[in-house]
């Protein structure tokens, strides 16, 4: 479920980065307000625990296959939603840096998909609601199962939306959803089973650990309306700023709007949208990338309503091939000569 950089557009990556940073900043504020610094090492070591626990293969009865722990829900259940979210964020950062599991630009998407839904939606709205009546093995099982499945379904749907808005794949929405949701239903069941088994064990052995975790208050207390409006404003502003990087003529978002609504751009009301688009057209250093496209192609692009397609006359395609090969050869040559010079220098000094 980790998204790679290659599949997202700068606009989607940027919006998700800002949104995730906002959630993280809010979580940090909450933790600082109501917790002692004792929790910091616990968060750190628990992050390492999830990392290591992901290496354990749990064999799934009657299937012959095995699954592993994702971690979002168990972190929320053991550390509370805020610390759980931050711990998940640091795990995903390390995975992106050291293991190329999910990219750095896609980090915002990944933290949101894997952390936000399980810690801020599934945990407070499902898990805690069920557990509130008191702990029992059965309730832990039901709560963990339902929360894990719903959290992962939402995360998978997030992946679908973010990928489609980025417009890098040709996968139709329906096919993508039909691929992602059932797979993540199975993953969610495994996650729920493992989480409930582990939480139930810890609760029996050391009940205070589990019961302590639930005192970190979650979204229940703050007005959801405020949060949503906040996010909407952030998303609009960053969308405006980042879309100057947007790649294609109708970029992913426009493309999907075009496909679903049938109009290129939803009618822009006056006010902030207008201002933003004016700023955008002024700051865009490549307005619509039209500066090198001949009129003929522009027309073609307008007719097809698709990304401008490079001209494919014989001359330019040969020039493109030769030039591309030359560029790569030059890069390789530069690299090799630097290594050669360095090696020779070392030999001389040795």
């Amino acid at each position, binding site marked *: 479920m980790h998204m790679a950089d290659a599949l997202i557009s*700068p606009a989607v990556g940027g919006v998700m980065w800002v949104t995730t940073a906002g959630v993280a900043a809010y979580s940090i504020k909450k933790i600082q307000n109501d917790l002692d610094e004792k929790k910091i090492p616990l968060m750190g070591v628990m992050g390492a625990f999830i990392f290591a626990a992901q290496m354990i293969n*749990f064999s799934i009865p009657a299937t012959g296959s095995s699954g592993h722990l994702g971690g979002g829900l168990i972190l929320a259940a053991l550390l509370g939603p805020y610390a759980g979210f931050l711990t998940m964020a640091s795990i995903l950062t390390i995975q992106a840096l050291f293991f190329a599991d999910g990219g750095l*630009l896609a980090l915002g998407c990944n933290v949101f998909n894997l952390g936000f839904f399980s810690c801020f939606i599934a945990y407070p709205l499902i898990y805690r609601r069920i557990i509130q009546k008191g702990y029992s093995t059965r309730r832990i099982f039901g709560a963990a199962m339902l929360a894990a499945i719903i959290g992962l379904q939402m995360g998978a749907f997030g992946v679908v939306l973010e990928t489609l808005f980025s417009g890098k794949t040709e996968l139709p929405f329906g096919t993508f959803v039909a691929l992602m949701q059932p797979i993540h239903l199975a993953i969610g069941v495994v996650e729920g089973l493992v989480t409930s088994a582990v939480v139930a064990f810890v609760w029996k052995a050391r009940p205070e650990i589990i019961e302590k975790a639930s005192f970190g208050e979650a979204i229940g207390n703050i007005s959801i309306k405020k949060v949503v409006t906040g996010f909407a404003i952030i998303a609009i502003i960053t969308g405006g700023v980042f879309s100057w990087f947007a790649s294609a003529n109708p970029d992913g978002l426009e493309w999907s709007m075009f496909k679903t609504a049938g109009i290129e751009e939803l009618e822009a009301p006056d006010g902030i949208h207008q201002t933003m688009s004016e700023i955008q057209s002024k700051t865009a250093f490549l307005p619509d990338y039209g500066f090198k496209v001949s009129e003929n192609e522009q027309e073609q692009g307008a007719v097809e309503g698709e990304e401008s397609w490079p001209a494919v006359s014989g001359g330019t395609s040969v020039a493109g091939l030769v030039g591309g090969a030359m560029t790569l050869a030059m890069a390789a040559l530069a690299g090799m000569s630097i290594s050669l010079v360095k090696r020779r220098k070392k030999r001389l000094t040795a």
Partner: protein
Amino acid sequence: MSNIINSLYNMRLLDDLARKETAIHKIHPLMKLLTTVVYLTVVVSFGKYEIGSLLPLFFYPVMVLALAELPVKPILLRILLVEPLIIGIGILNPLFDHQVFYLGGIAISRGWVTFFSIFIKCGLTVTAALLLIATTGMDRLASAFRMLKIPRLFVLQLLLTYRYISVLMEEVARILRAYSLRAPEHKGIHRNAWGSLAGQLILRTFDRAQRVYEAMCLRGFTGEYNTGGYGKIKVWDFAYLLGWVSFFAIAKIYNIPMLIGSLLTGVVR
């Protein structure tokens, strides 16, 4: 089990590489971080049909790899491990985009072009992230995060997680070895042992966190993880960032391979 050993090996390799002292390693971590972010943004900002103009961006990883004296093989291996995931999604492009165009007399479907553009982008972005950590290291990167005003609580927690990954991985490796000795021929952990196996590890993790915290307090922990100062940003560090950013901008605005190609084919004619 081999999974754990691979992960540990990988982390230690990158740690070792980060300890080298080449010109690239000496550049201020913040400048390297910013260069990487700009690079990634530029790479993914290219349209899905623009393969040609993407090629000059190969210069960045090649130059950094050579100047930082990094081994090519392990980094290539990492990319190869990640590519299948991308191929899995990208390979569907040729199925959905059948429009054909001709390149030097050969018919190619657009779907393949978009597939290759995703493939190349994946290679470039993965390499850039690995090069950042292999030339900077976690501690120095964390100091760059602090300079960017990322809250100390998060940075501290990130560093602690990183520090304890190897400890807990070794612990998991021991647990799994013990389990496999007692339950031979089992593919994974049996359902009956799910809770107790991972649960015991959690209990130990909590106790360990308590000990870590006490040890930190005894050594005068005041809430800051000291990484040995930030180091000043010198003119050369700025020049590094500026140089690369202007190169990326030129590569983004002009189709360099096309310019070289037209120049060469023009000369031949």
